[in-house]
């Protein structure tokens, strides 16, 4: 959502703008102004700038989010190995400390920039923008942004990515989408990872995980993956390749795309008017 075209005004919140003009006298005689500004508009402005930058270079950017240890870096390693002959890949890694994840990716021959956030529990658009200064986007097809492992804060910040992927590993339990609805509602694809462990962790039901995602009104594909079982990786790789192709076509038409959760405001605005 932006703050310029009015797409953040829906029939659910339009009463917040005072009728009869924005500027009003208050009871105590001072003045008040109705604004309806998204509090994260500065972040969103930088995110839009990042997205334009990606689109200009035809880069498809994916934001990977999950709890710590759900297998984001392992999924990236497996994806890099499977795709690097056909696509040029770069990675931005977000962690509180260490270069470990960037080194894991670099050891596979792919450029990786590590953002160490110190104590910040999420990446924001400004951090990604700074990291982009260290990356040559020319010739890159796919940019993976591995967010800080955290099922809460990263969901609130647009980075300029085109798609959000949220991982849920089998050891975490199938009710995580119900416990962290903001995060799982934001997903364009949910990857149930470490499914090789289903044999021993038999209290995890993939059906329940799926219905918990659907209960968030999220129609995103829910894939079952294990980096230890090559055959489970096919659907994930096919989704990525399809997204890259679609994004190339969009870039040629001068269009872009944002993660699914964000166009809601624009759609509802169309409903309300």
């Amino acid at each position, binding site marked *: 959502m932006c703050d310029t075209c009015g797409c953040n005004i829906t029939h659910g919140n339009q009463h917040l703008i005072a009728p009869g003009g924005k500027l009003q006298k208050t009871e105590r005689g001072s003045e008040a102004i109705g604004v309806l500004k998204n*509090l994260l508009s500065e972040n969103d402005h930088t995110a839009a700038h990042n997205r334009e930058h990606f689109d200009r270079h035809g880069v498809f950017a994916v934001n990977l989010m999950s709890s710590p240890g759900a297998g984001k870096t392992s999924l990236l390693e497996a994806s890099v190995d499977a795709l690097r002959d056909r696509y040029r890949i770069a990675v931005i890694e977000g962690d509180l400390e260490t270069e470990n994840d960037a080194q894991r990716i670099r050891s596979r021959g792919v450029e990786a920039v590590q953002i160490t956030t110190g104590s910040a529990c999420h990446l924001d658009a400004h951090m990604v923008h700074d990291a982009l200064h260290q990356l040559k986007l020319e010739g890159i097809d796919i940019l993976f942004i591995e967010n800080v492992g955290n099922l809460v804060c990263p*969901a609130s910040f647009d980075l300029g990515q085109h798609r959000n992927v949220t991982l849920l590993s089998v050891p975490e339990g199938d009710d995580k989408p119900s416990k962290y609805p*903001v995060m799982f509602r934001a997903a364009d694809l949910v990857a149930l990872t470490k499914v090789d462990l289903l044999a021993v962790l038999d209290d995890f039901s993939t059906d329940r995980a799926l219905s918990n995602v659907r209960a968030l009104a999220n129609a995103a594909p829910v894939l079952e993956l294990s980096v230890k079982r090559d055959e489970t990786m096919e659907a994930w790789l096919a989704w990525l390749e399809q997204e890259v192709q679609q994004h190339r076509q969009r870039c040629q038409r001068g269009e872009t795309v944002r993660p699914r959760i964000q166009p809601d405001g624009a759609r509802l605005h169309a409903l309300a008017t």
Partner: protein
Amino acid sequence: MHELSICQALIAQVELLAREQRAQRVLSLALAVGPLSGVEANLLRQAYPFAAAGTVAEGAELAIEDRPIRVHCTSCGQDSDATANRLLCACCGDWQTELVSGDELILSRVEFEREQAYV
């Protein structure tokens, strides 16, 4: 805990508005916050005085309107109340709904005093 960074973004917006309006002092701010914004109103209230200190908004009252979660059903067309982890239509039970309200993180109103010369 990202509420402090959100408060800092809030104060930056208020400072900009205050300059535009030639406000001498900000008296109150109103926010609308829905549960699906991922931001906790109580944590915002705690972080706010730290972010406002030394700015034009120092001492300004912070009012937070909690927004209800409402969905619009794309199957039956009805609007209904929902909860954060069950965004189902209360009328027909379908999960194919769109959010009408509940994910807001909005600065809705700023009350201020102008410099005398401009009143």
